[in-house]
């Protein structure tokens, strides 16, 4: 049987004329062609815009990068206009620290908020909370910065002090202070800036995660419920696996925002140019805040140096997002994310 089955097609093929592969001809209507070209050019604009921004930063920053060379990556002070050295060796770690503090706080809070809204909240509360979260996402960062500076910071430093006293075995919370741990050294720190940035990141992360969780397939939810699943069981086995892409996407969107946050960080921090592990004591920095602070007082060369710093931020943001989309695309098909 199998012998006949195998030989039969080749017999047929031998007898017939050589096959000609058909190239399907597609005739597009006028309206299809028009829309196609509009859509295509819109897509191309994205690439052009990315290229233009990156190219512009590179071009403007080139003078400074030529002078600094590799020192741009290894020097921590910032004195381009004084003819001194300048580099991102301190600013970049500070930027990342602030963003990480923000994410460590924002992601769990956003995750739980999104789960509460989609899985546990009663219908009316769900609608109200969704509207509130969207509203919070729309509050300008300057408002967060001012509120954080005048209201939150004086209260937050008590927590900073407690952490410095009790958790000092963690390198991040270790504070070297020759005056003893007085409250005075805790304001304007990486920690305070990170907490305030986290407040801005939470609504964005929550909005993305909520959207994805709410699209978890009802069939799978019901399947899990019908097996005697608890609410938590459904969340763990249906909603979270489905929403994995959204969790990562939302976090990365938040990280992007945290890395680039300018005005709130500028208001909070007192600029420091020596990298350090400790996040609790005074002095921090960020690329965006540096540019905002120095921009108006810089010479042409100083601005070129700031552009180079901006380029570094641009590249890091791109890398973060590229990494995120790789992870997301490896997660299950059908789940969605707005990255």
């Amino acid at each position, binding site marked *: 049987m199998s012998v006949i089955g195998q030989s039969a097609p080749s017999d047929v093929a031998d007898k017939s004329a050589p096959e000609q592969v058909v190239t399907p001809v597609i005739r597009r209507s006028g309206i299809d062609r028009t829309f196609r070209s509009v859509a295509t050019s819109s897509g191309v604009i994205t690439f052009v815009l990315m290229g233009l921004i990156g190219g512009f930063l590179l071009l403007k920053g080139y003078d400074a990068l030529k002078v600094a060379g590799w020192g741009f990556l290894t020097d921590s002070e910032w004195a381009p206009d004084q003819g001194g050295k300048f580099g991102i060796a301190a600013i970049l770690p500070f930027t990342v620290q602030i963003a990480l503090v923000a994410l460590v706080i924002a992601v769990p809070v956003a995750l739980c908020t999104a789960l509460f809204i989609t899985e546990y909240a009663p219908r009316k509360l769900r609608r109200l909370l969704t509207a509130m979260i969207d509203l919070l996402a729309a509050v300008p960062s300057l408002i967060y910065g001012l509120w954080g500076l005048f209201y939150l910071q004086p209260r937050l430093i008590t927590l900073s002090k407690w952490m410095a006293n009790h958790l000092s075995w963690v390198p991040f919370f270790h504070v070297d202070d020759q005056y003893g741990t007085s409250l005075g050294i805790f304001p304007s720190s990486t920690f305070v800036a990170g907490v305030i940035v986290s407040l801005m990141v939470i609504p964005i992360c929550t909005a993305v995660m909520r959207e994805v969780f709410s699209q978890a397939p009802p069939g799978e939810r019901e*399947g899990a419920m*019908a*097996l*005697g699943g608890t609410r938590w*069981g459904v969340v763990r086995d249906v909603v979270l696996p489905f929403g994995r892409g959204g969790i990562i996407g939302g976090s990365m969107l938040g990280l992007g925002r945290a890395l680039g946050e300018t005005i709130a960080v500028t208001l909070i921090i007192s600029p420091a140019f020596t990298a350090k592990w400790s996040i609790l004591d005074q002095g921090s920095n960020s690329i965006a805040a540096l540019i905002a602070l120095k921009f108006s007082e810089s010479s042409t060369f100083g601005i070129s140096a700031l552009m180079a710093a901006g380029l570094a931020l641009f590249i890091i943001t791109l890398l973060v997002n590229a990494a995120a989309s790789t992870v997301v695309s490896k997660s299950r098909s059908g789940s969605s994310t707005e990255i």
Partner: protein
Amino acid sequence: MTSIDITSTDTTRMSSDISLLDPGHQAAGLTANNVACWFGTKKVLEGVNLDMAPGQVTALIGPSGCGKSTFLRTLNRMHELVPSATLAGEILIDGVDIYRGAIPVTDVRRRIGMVFQKPNPFPAMTVAENVLAGLKLSGLKTTRSERDELIESCLSKAGLWNEVKNRLGDPGRALSGGQQQRLCIARSLAVSPQVLLMDEPCSALDPTSTRRIEQTISEISETITVVIVTHNMQQAQRVSHRCAFFLAAENEPGRIVEEGPTKDIFTNPRDSRTNDYVNGRFG
């Protein structure tokens, strides 16, 4: 759990592998007393009284929109998951009300399993994990050998073991539609339900898969009470012991027109509407 009267069921029908986790497992009877359902203010079901005897297959038949599926979903408290859905009357499992708190809702759903119209295996899980999903969902702890035994016995019961025994690590979604549906049946069997509700389980399947599932139904009905919604009259005749014919007049809630042994419903119905429906004159 709660004190449940199980004297009415026949212990000789117990199957050792199905009852792996619950040695006292037996088919349970379901009783619906004067059940009515609403979605918002629209009443979709009224005055439904039905006895679903232990170890028997009861088929719910009737044209679309007559409330069969709604009724089925009241039997394991899936109805209440629809926002604005309400219910009156009572549903008893072996004489115990399932709605008034005597049994926790998760236990109700574990004892009264459900297979849906569209196969819904968990896509993030493998074939084996899908079978065990119910245990994980309800937090039951098992040993590795128990799990292996359960996977094999449930997949065998669902008529799927031979096809997937070498693909247990594949994702559930990689199976064909008919296999996915049988996987869902296996998944339901793994938590040793006393009743299995099936909502048009074969409507999306080819004839071969349909036949396999019908075989499975007649095999499991020895130890599990089955309630099946079907639009396929031949299927109802093939698999069920008893039939309930639902009908809804225009803008009126659905009711049971006639209920009785399947043979009587199909060959000697009392109501002319039943006769018209089972002979394909409407619906």
